[in-house]
């Protein structure tokens, strides 16, 4: 049986881990198979969990989060017959599939939509913990905004610098209020449970918000402009579906293979104009074609569109 290991946030974080969970569930529903799952409580359990699963015969084993990177590079060689898949990190071992996403590309698209939906010309970004990965989101977003409206202002805030920053929706709310008072009328939240507060306040204050990772449009129908999709669910689903035969090596999920994207459904159909959709799809095509280059913050830890 396959197995999935969730990171400290837990499988119901409404975004990243939950997406992985959804992928696994989808696989289970469609195939009727069963899988094992483990949630992390502490750092020391990472290795423990991987080894336990490998020894008990689970295969393949998917883990969510870059924090597993170092542990996996130690564990993987000990279990050459087991295939591991890690999301958000690259581990160069023969039996590891590394899935990484081009979040900056997806963020670019929702940034464009934000700029088009904004009337004030000021849009906001609220990140969870201040780490390079989140800056990557912010940077792509800012590039998208500026691509549409070079005069636009992007206000970026991080909820904090410690893991607690992922779990304080009240802080998310207040940051949103602060951004609104600075003129923002669209905010993009990439902040775990803190983002729940962001979306809530945006809805309460009648401005638009943008969800992240999973499709969060349904949380406030008609008030969430879109969600930047990071198809962790697809990644997990694919690994599970491939079973023993899963391909190892680096698997980059970008626009071209629908690894990232934006969400369009009945909840935001009225918000996304045809014109908006057209512009975004065009940009998407250009990015896939390599005509438009979106800068990846993590490639050099710098951002041309936004200063942190």
């Amino acid at each position, binding site marked *: 049986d396959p197995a999935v290991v969730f990171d*400290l946030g837990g499988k119901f974080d409404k975004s990243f881990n939950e997406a992985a969970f959804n992928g696994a569930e989808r696989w289970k529903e469609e195939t009727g198979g069963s899988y094992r799952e*483990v*949630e992390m*409580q*502490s*750092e*020391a*359990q990472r*290795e*423990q*969990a991987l*080894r*336990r699963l490998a020894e008990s015969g689970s295969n393949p084993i998917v883990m969510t989060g*870059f*924090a597993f*990177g*170092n542990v996996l590079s130690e564990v993987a060689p000990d279990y050459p017959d087991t295939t591991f898949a890690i999301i*958000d*990190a690259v581990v160069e071992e023969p039996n590891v599939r590394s899935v990484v996403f081009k979040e900056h590309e997806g963020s670019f698209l929702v940034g464009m939509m934000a700029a088009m939906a904004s009337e004030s010309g000021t849009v906001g970004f609220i990140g969870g913990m*201040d*780490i*390079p*990965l989140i800056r990557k989101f912010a940077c792509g977003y800012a590039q998208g905004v500026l691509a549409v409206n070079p005069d636009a202002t992007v206000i970026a805030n991080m909820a904090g*610098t*410690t*893991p*607690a920053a992922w779990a304080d929706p009240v802080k998310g709310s207040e940051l949103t209020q602060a951004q609104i008072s600075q003129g923002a009328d669209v905010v993009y939240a990439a902040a775990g449970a803190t983002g729940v507060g962001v979306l809530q306040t945006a809805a309460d204050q009648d401005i638009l918000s943008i969800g992240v990772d999973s499709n969060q449009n349904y949380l406030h129908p008609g008030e969430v402009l879109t969600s930047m999709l990071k198809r962790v669910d697809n990644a997990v689903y694919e690994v599970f579906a491939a079973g023993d035969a899963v391909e190892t090596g680096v698997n980059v999920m970008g626009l071209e293979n629908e690894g990232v994207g934006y969400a369009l459904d009945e909840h935001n159909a009225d918000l996304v104009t045809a014109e908006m959709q057209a512009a975004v799809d065009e940009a998407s095509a250009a990015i896939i074609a390599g005509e438009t280059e979106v800068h990846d913050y*993590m490639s050099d830890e710098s951002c041309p569109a936004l200063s942190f």
Partner: protein
Amino acid sequence: MDVMPKWAEVVLVPLISLVLAFLISALVILGIGENPVNAIRVMVSGALGSAYGWGFTLYYATNFIFTGLAVAVAFHARLFNIGGEGQALIGGLGVAFVCLYIPWPHWSLALLGATAGAAIFGAIWAAIPAWLQAKRGSHIVITTIMFNYIAAALLSYMLTEQIKAPGSDPASAFFPDATNLPTFYDMFSWTGLGFSEFTPANVSFLIALLACLFVWVLIWRTKLGYEIRAFGHSEPAAKYAGISPTKIIMVTMIISGALAGMMAINNVMGEAERLNLNAAEGAGFIGIAVALMGRSHPIGVFMAALLFGFLYQGGAELAFSTSIPSQLIIVIQALVILFTGALDNMVRMPLERIFLTLRRPPKPETKLEAAE
């Protein structure tokens, strides 16, 4: 004078309390629709049933011994050090500096250096609130809480701006191999105890035991310990005896902070082998419970730390092999703390009555008669 024999006080009361805590826990497990007997069995066999389980249980216990001793030492001076978490984080910083920037020839020397580094850094982090308490009268409970938050921010700054290794997460580089501590596997392979190569318990456990001994000697065998306890019992009396409150507050908190900081040799140096943001993982707070439950005595702290180590590892096993949410472990911890620490009189009072009636008839001795 005591109503109950010592064994009843030391063994019976905690044991019955523990049983009560587990009974209520069983009800909770039933309440969420799971099988409590199975759950307890999984926890016990997973944490204590194999050398593998012990390898984790003792690893967690090591953390809690350090933070528990830290809180306990401060308690003897009636100082409530809630700052163990922050001191442990900063201790980790000390370990990281020592391991990263000094070329150590052998782990044993590195361990000495790292212990010193952790202790010094932790001590500094405790010394500031201590100084504020002694000189400015700032309540140590508030300042140590604040210093936990400040420590987290400082660590974040160090790990993102100063000693960050290339890569996505805010963490330091891995420490050089020469600083890697031997685990129980390395240490006890010749005994056939069968510790797994992959369990994190390591030589710092022995340091933790030494720390217990150190605290015991300090508190009950040295002049300083005598003064610390005297100050804790009565500040006016301490002044009368020529014991300087400033000195005691500072020294006690420095020792306390050093002990909390030393936790880092276990988790940072012994397990992760690098410094990351999660370095303390709440062990500082568990330390409060451990010290309170252990009645601030090193042996009690050791036992309580083992109990919490068991709960941590048993809980992990529970998460591996059942679908019980991991929060159940927090609930069990809460009930254990509640029953053994706060509701202990609920058990003690009836027991005392029983012992009193048991001993009345044969031996109607009173203090007054003993006075003759």
